């Protein structure tokens, strides 16, 4: 049956039809829905792992045991999992192993714009790149075939536009091939003597995969006009077809590592001019140059950001309609912390105290945005905890008394724990604030090791943050409610002042969680409101100023009451205490 399917769901369907039995991932936009959709199938074991490295190694264990396995992540997650990936390239697999990695050109929801194809090349692992949902489904199945035939993990590279677009697919039945586990020390124990023997195997495998790439149907030529030939892949292929149609010839690459040679040379010989259209880095273009071809690419199209059909059309000399603009500049609408967000009260406090705040990856990165504007650094998962240690060691006591780091519960489990071990071990008197909102928020509410539930929503193991910190040797562990501004301020000031490492757990569940009860919206008593704008300092989207008075949007307000603590005139009314 034909149906519209999200790219990520189509990957999940492909993995399912190919008989995947084990899935372990860490959520990350735009990859998250692959694992979420897979978890809907009762006959696949699925889990959220604490981070991508653990996910990949768990998937490796399952494939070693003889069961087709998958792990999924966003592009930066592959950096975390690079360690197992590069050596799994040597060991190869038993049953198939597919790694889905989703790039985010345009940085819709990411801290950088790295190109995962470099990891495929460097680790010498083959990479498939679908350009729509139908290919996502088909390539996921093909990835398992290639994995077992060539004894290698296979990378399936998605991107935001393929992951988060729905297009038409047809599904088929599931078959589940199984393998036996066999002890094979020389293949699976990567100590120098064994690894030296496996490296030539990897080189030979790449040679064989290059041969496969020359004739595989995933790399196809679509001849049209022969004045210009374009080599392209992924969503760029769709933009080329949209903008230029049959006026050009196209070599559409579904496999971007290893790249074919004869196929490209042959295609180049059939067209007058050659160009490569690829988002991010000039990977295919550089390959063409190495083959001695004269080729255009990044001289026409940018390395930074996403492409679109108009961009391609203009790059090749066509005119496009730019639409019409209003004469005035419109106010931007950046993302904001939700009404009732537990992070708001804490960031307000940090701003009030005037702390230097080293931050991390999650919804709370929005603490860097006005009017809170109280986060000064965000790098990668876990970096807040590691970097506050270096920051404080570099600057000493003065810094220790006015610097904090903030990290979410899920990010802390991902890679904050090891940084905390460094603070405990090498003893900087750092103040670490764990923003425990009892969920992985940014990616859309995934469970994690601190929540007590698994990916299917069933009860699971639950890590006790206080006990964990105590076991590392922390003596000062404070728990605060970020809705209570006075308690927040007192606690943060005390922990900054003390001469030992400390952890503050700011604990309150995400306001968007279904089990969190919304309280009735507050109202402004206009007779009491003096229009002093104190309440505006927390940046709540439910509060605005109209005609010199504060106003609460009843459709947005969840009655958290943080604003009431800022008002000196008791102008907010209707506050209901929690049950």
């Amino acid at each position, binding site marked *: 049956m034909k149906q519209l399917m999200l790219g990520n769901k189509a990957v999940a369907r492909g993995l399912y039809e190919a008989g995947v039995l084990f899935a372990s991932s860490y959520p990350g936009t735009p990859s998250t829905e692959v694992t979420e959709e897979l978890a809907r199938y009762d006959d696949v074991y699925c889990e959220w792992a604490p981070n991508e490295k653990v996910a990949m190694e768990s998937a490796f264990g399952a494939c070693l045991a003889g069961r087709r396995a998958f792990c999924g992540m966003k592009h930066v997650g592959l950096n975390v999992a690079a360690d197992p990936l590069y050596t799994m390239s040597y060991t190869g697999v038993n049953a198939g192993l597919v790694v889905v990695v989703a790039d985010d050109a345009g940085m819709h929801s990411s801290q950088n714009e790295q190109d995962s194809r470099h990891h495929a090349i460097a680790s010498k692992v083959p990479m498939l790149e679908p350009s729509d949902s139908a290919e996502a489904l088909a390539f996921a199945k093909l990835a398992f075939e290639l994995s077992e035939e060539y004894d290698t993990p296979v990378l399936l590279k998605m991107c935001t536009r393929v992951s988060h677009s729905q297009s038409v697919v047809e599904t088929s039945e599931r078959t589940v091939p199984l393998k036996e586990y066999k002890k094979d020390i020389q293949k699976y124990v990567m100590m120098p003597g064994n690894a030296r023997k496996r490296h030539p195997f990897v080189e030979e495998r790449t040679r064989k995969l290059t041969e496969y790439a020359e004739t595989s149907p995933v790399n196809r030529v679509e001849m049209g006009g022969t004045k210009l030939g374009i080599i392209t892949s992924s969503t760029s292929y769709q933009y080329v077809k*949209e903008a230029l149609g049959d006026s050009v010839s196209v070599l559409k690459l579904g496999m971007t590592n290893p790249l074919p040679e004869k196929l490209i040379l042959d295609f180049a010989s059939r067209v007058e001019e050659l160009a490569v259209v690829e988002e991010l880095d000039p990977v295919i273009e550089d390959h063409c140059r190495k083959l001695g071809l004269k080729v255009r690419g990044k001289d026409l199209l940018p390395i930074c950001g996403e492409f679109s059909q108009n961009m391609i059309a203009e790059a090749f000399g066509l005119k496009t309609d730019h639409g*019409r603009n209003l004469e005035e500049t419109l*106010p931007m609408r950046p993302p904001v912390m939700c009404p009732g967000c537990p992070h708001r009260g804490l960031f307000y406090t940090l701003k009030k105290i005037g702390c230097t705040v080293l931050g991390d990856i999650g919804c709370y990165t929005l603490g860097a945005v006005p009017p809170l504007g109280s986060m000064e650094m965000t790098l990668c998962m876990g970096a807040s905890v590691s970097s506050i240690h270096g920051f404080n060691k570099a600057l000493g006591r003065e810094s220790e008394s006015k610097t904090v780091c903030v990290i979410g519960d899920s990010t802390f489990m991902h890679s904050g724990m090891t940084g905390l071990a460094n603070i405990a071990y090498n003893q900087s008197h750092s103040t670490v604030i764990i923003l425990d909102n009892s969920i992985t928020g940014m990616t859309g509410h995934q469970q994690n090791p601190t929540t007590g539930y698994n990916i299917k929503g069933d009860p699971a193991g639950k890590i006790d943050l206080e006990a964990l910190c105590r076991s590392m040797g922390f003596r000062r562990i404070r728990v605060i409610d970020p809705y209570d501004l006075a308690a927040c301020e007192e606690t943060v000031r005390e922990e900054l002042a003390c001469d030992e490492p400390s952890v503050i757990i700011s604990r309150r569940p995400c306001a968007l969680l279904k089990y969190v009860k919304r309280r009735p919206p507050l109202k402004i008593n206009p007779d009491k409101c003096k229009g002093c704008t104190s309440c505006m300092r927390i940046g709540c989207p439910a509060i605005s100023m109209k005609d010199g008075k504060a106003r609460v949007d009843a459709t947005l307000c969840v009655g958290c009451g943080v604003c009431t603590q800022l008002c000196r005139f008791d102008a907010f009314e209707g506050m209901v205490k929690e049950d």
Partner: protein
Amino acid sequence: MKTKNIMIVGVGGQGSLLASKLLGHLLLSEGYDVKVSEVHGMSQRGGSVVTYVRYGDSVASPVIDRGEADCIVSFELLEAARWLPYLRQDGRIVTNTQQIDPMPVVTGAVSYPEDLVGKMKTAGAGIDAMDCVALAEQAGNIKAVNLVLLGRLSHYFEFPEEAWMRSIEACVPAKFLEVNKKAFALGRDAS
């Protein structure tokens, strides 16, 4: 047939998902090739969000570019104005007149622009502006803004009303069906 383009724009959290799901269902059941492109992740947190719906004999790109949209369906007035450059010269905007202040307006850095409907008309855009929140309330549920907008949109596409009804029935939970059908009718008949 040349590919047709519908954009659904609004503020993250306004719930445009049902509108794109319903359109996708309708267009697929009418026999078209369809692509729907969504936004997930950070911008969903109260930011400006857009969904692209494209249909035709064979759709290539999943996104809509400037000057290409046949119709822009907007859940919020400022967002309609923001995406105006994406409208074709002969395209149409169907918008809710609801105003949601973005953070720079909340903080007082800038003010919410005045008379955006008038300004868009002056810029030459065909525009249907309605208080969809009031119409949704009239239908019985403030969350039925989706269907009010789709009801109005249905004027500009030659799909039979039965096809719309079949897609509403397929995409809306049974207990909300009557409210949503009523909202669709109110949007369709609004002038």
